């Protein structure tokens, strides 16, 4: 079963590798953006889906990663690829320090505490004008070369990042950490009684997820070549990421990626057709997913598609 899935995934990957040579620059850009979201969702899923801690403000690490790359490239003149490990490291350190107090909270409290952290970091970045350029933003060195080459470069950079995220997520689900996280999700007290060091495992899960999201931020910063606090610490990204995880199913490795592909492509089509009401449609789409597909697309339609299943979901959660 796993071999068959792996085979399908490799074919999918192979298509993605050859795609940039046949599609236009516009679609290259759309797909790069999709990979970015897929990688963020896959990384965040380790804390959200596996562990069951709704880290609503996980985009904080995205912003931190972006700024680490930005500052290292402009102020210390480091090469782009050399900065990415530092972006990951920044995420790990931050998540480890914050994890100890914050991961004691549960449910809503944890969710909003992470949002609070994101807002606080954004404001600190906004105020550290000498290092980060504050509200003026930070302009990164522009990559040398033909536009065609640059498009493809970021396409593959993002794709590799996504594959790495999936690999890490897969490995995590197969080792002791993954089983511990699953136990924590189902019943944290019981897990603790069983001898699982829950604070340690939760913090480790958050750190891994922060590292992946941090690297995504780093690549994004160089891709955009201009960042300011409001373009990298974006609340909407958090929601999109959450909706992707829900749509695909949070307990699987591949679910968030599939969710990201579906949602991002829909949102792109909506964006190009109805630009004025794009935000309203996105809001409605999220409401629709929550109402009719709370278990995720694939879990709901396991045995084939039918409208009945949509409405049975609705009945189940009704008061």
């Amino acid at each position, binding site marked *: 079963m796993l071999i068959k899935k792996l085979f399908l995934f490799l074919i999918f990957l192979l298509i993605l590798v050859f795609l940039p040579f046949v599609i236009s620059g516009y679609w290259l850009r759309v797909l790069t953006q999709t990979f970015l979201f897929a990688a963020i969702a896959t990384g965040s899923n380790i804390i959200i889906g596996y562990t069951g801690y709704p880290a609503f403000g996980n985009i904080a690490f995205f912003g931190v990663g972006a700024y680490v790359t930005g500052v290292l490239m402009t102020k210390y003149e480091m090469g782009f690829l050399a900065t990415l490990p530092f972006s990951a490291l920044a995420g790990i350190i931050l998540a480890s320090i914050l994890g100890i107090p914050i991961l004691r909270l549960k449910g*809503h409290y944890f969710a*909003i505490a992470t949002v609070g952290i994101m807002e606080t970091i954004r*404001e600190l970045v906004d105020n550290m004008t000498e290092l980060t350029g504050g509200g003026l933003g930070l302009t990164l060195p522009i990559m040398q070369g033909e536009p065609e080459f640059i498009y493809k470069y970021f396409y593959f950079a993002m794709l590799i990042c996504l594959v790495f995220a999936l690999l890490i997520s897969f490995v995590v689900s197969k080792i002791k950490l993954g089983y511990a996280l699953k136990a924590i999700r189902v019943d944290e007290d019981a897990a603790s009684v069983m001898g699982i060091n829950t604070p340690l495992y939760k913090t480790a899960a958050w750190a891994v997820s922060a590292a992946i999201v941090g690297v995504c931020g780093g690549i994004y910063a160089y891709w955009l070549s201009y960042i300011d606090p409001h373009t990298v610490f974006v609340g909407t990204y958090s929601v999109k990421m*959450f909706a992707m995880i*829900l749509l695909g199913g949070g307990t699987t490795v591949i679910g968030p990626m599939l969710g990201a592909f579906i949602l991002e492509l829909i949102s792109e089509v909506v964006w190009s057709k109805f630009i004025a009401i794009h*935000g309203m449609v996105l809001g409605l789409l999220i409401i629709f997913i*929550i109402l009719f597909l709370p278990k995720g697309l694939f879990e709901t339609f396991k045995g084939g598609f039918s409208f009945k299943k949509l409405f049975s979901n609705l009945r189940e959660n009704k*008061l």
Partner: protein
Amino acid sequence: MIILQILVNGFLLGGFYTLIGVGFTLVWGVTNIINLAHGAIALLGAYITYFIFQYWHLDPFVTLPVSFLSMFLFGYVLQRYLMNLVVKAQIFMLLILTFGLEIFLVNFMTTFFSADFKSVTPDYAGSSLVLGDIVIPYIRLGVFAICVIVTLLMSFFLDRTWTGKAIKATSLDIEAAMMSGINPAKIYALTFAFGSGLAGLSGSLLSLTQAFSPNIAGGLTLRAFIVSILGGLGRIEGAFLGGLVLGVVETMSSYVIGESYKNAIAFGLMVLMLIIKPSGLLGRKYYAEVKH
């Protein structure tokens, strides 16, 4: 003397935070819904006051019942026919549902009312009460008074009326409440309606004291959240205390550290509270219990 003026400003701001927090904390405490669209609903109230003032030149204070009632109805319908459908799902489903709603409402307002900053300025906007060195604008004083009165009324309603008691009973034990003949679907809808109505009211008052645009919705929601955390969930007097603390801390820190760190300090205060005493200053186990 400047410290005294700052304290007064802090209290006046705190009155507004109380009102926006009361609705939020009530909804959270009773239905366990974090309504991330609270700020957006408040802004709908602000636009109602703005448009009535703009086209019919009615005094903004007269429009308060209109925005309360229309948001009350809006909230009732929303909870009865949308949120009640997902109440039993995992907690973060509702969180995202309300965020979807927030995105929808904010974009709706941006599309139809534009993203420009609007403000309501009646004739008496500039006049103030002067007490020695301290200056208090009449409007802010009026806003503060209304906030306090409405908060007291809400507290009275919850403690003394049958419906209020039913709301409290539902928040304590939903099954026991059902056994005594309370319909939780209706109580949830009613609670959310009160929460939204109070949000709309506070939005109308906001339009009097500062300029607003659809983009400040998130900031308002987070303020309401901080007030609830500080005071303790579902408790009206908790929201009152939390609102005043937040108002004073915010104005104080703006003066001492600088205006641009205002949000960081408010959130820092909240995270600190969550770590030290997650149930809030006045929170008791019985109300603020974390339901899963």
